């Protein structure tokens, strides 16, 4: 079954979810590896380590037509947000956002 990675804040993360991206501490060390099933004790520990968001795996139930509509809407919104002339850095930001949004909607 197809899955996708979703970043969630506290309050939207529940025990039983699977961690999709490792949690890295401020010292660069891995606090929790990807693939771990989250339990209350682990979540409590992450709070105390200052973690503010977690990436979890969830089943991707979106159908291709829905994804295509979302991709078109994202491209249109980004064109609107980046309307007008801009610097190279602004163009690079536009390109990075577009690539990320489209990757999320594959």
């Amino acid at each position, binding site marked *: 079954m197809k899955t996708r990675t979703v970043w969630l*804040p506290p309050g939207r993360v529940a025990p039983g979810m699977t961690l999709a991206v490792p949690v890295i501490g401020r010292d660069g060390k891995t606090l929790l590896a990807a693939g771990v099933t989250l339990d209350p*004790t682990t979540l409590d520990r992450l709070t105390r380590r200052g973690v503010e968001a977690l990436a979890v795996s969830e089943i991707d139930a979106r159908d291709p037509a829905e994804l295509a509509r979302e991709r078109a809407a994202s491209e249109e919104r980004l064109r609107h947000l*980046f309307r007008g002339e801009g610097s190279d*850095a602004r163009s690079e930001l536009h390109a990075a956002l577009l690539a990320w949004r489209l990757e999320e909607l594959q």
Partner: protein
Amino acid sequence: MNPPDLEELIGHADAIPSLPEIVRHLIHSLDDDLADVDTLVHDINADPAIVGRLLAAANSAAFGLSARIDSARQAFLVLGINRVSAIILGAALLDRYHAGSPDFDARLLWRHTFGVAVCARVIAEACDEEPETAFTAGLLHDIGQLLMVSGAPAAYARVLALQSEDDWSVLAAEHEVFGYNHAQAGGRLADYWRLPRDIAEAIAAHHEPDRFDSTLGEIVHLAEALAHALDLGGPPNNRVPAVSDRASARLGVRWRDLVSHFGEIEARYDGLRIALAL
């Protein structure tokens, strides 16, 4: 009636509430490993409204805690000084500066500034700069708009009309109506409030970082662009402002290298909005 010039506008600064003492104390303690938690807890407990906000937000900011956070001291122990400081500063700003004018929605401004604060923290982390100072500067970067709305509501309504009806940028519209912009006004207000020098400079520099020598200003400048690009709290007519090539180069920020943080930024922003009921 002509809008006030910058000097006259600063004369209106007393008409808006100043920051609570505990917030000033926290701002001056940012990134200070030796900050005295006992003193901070004592000061926080002197303000019941802030304690109430802190506890509500702290319990929302925790992942599935086994026990609820029921005191300011426990909030420090569980969440740490930096997150408690962010919550208190955010709550104080929301509680004190909610008034706008019929044309100006302060909540929209705060949603935007929380987005900029979260982006500033991530960019600072990527650049090995102090993330909590960057977060605070991001949260305060648009205080000049509050002063302009408060000191000249009719004139600021013309700024908003130029934006919404004719798609002017906020800077161009402010210059057209006032002859100066909210970054200049905000820098002056930060000085008046005696905020730390680096934060005051960052507020003044955030739209024109090339005219200043402020690393923090450059971080807030790029954070502003990223928050608009991610549409964090953005209105329908949102637009990504100018982005300085020089600031990007000086900080060594390459947007494609930050892509892996975008999802996390959105989640952190959602977490703050939930915690502060924004």
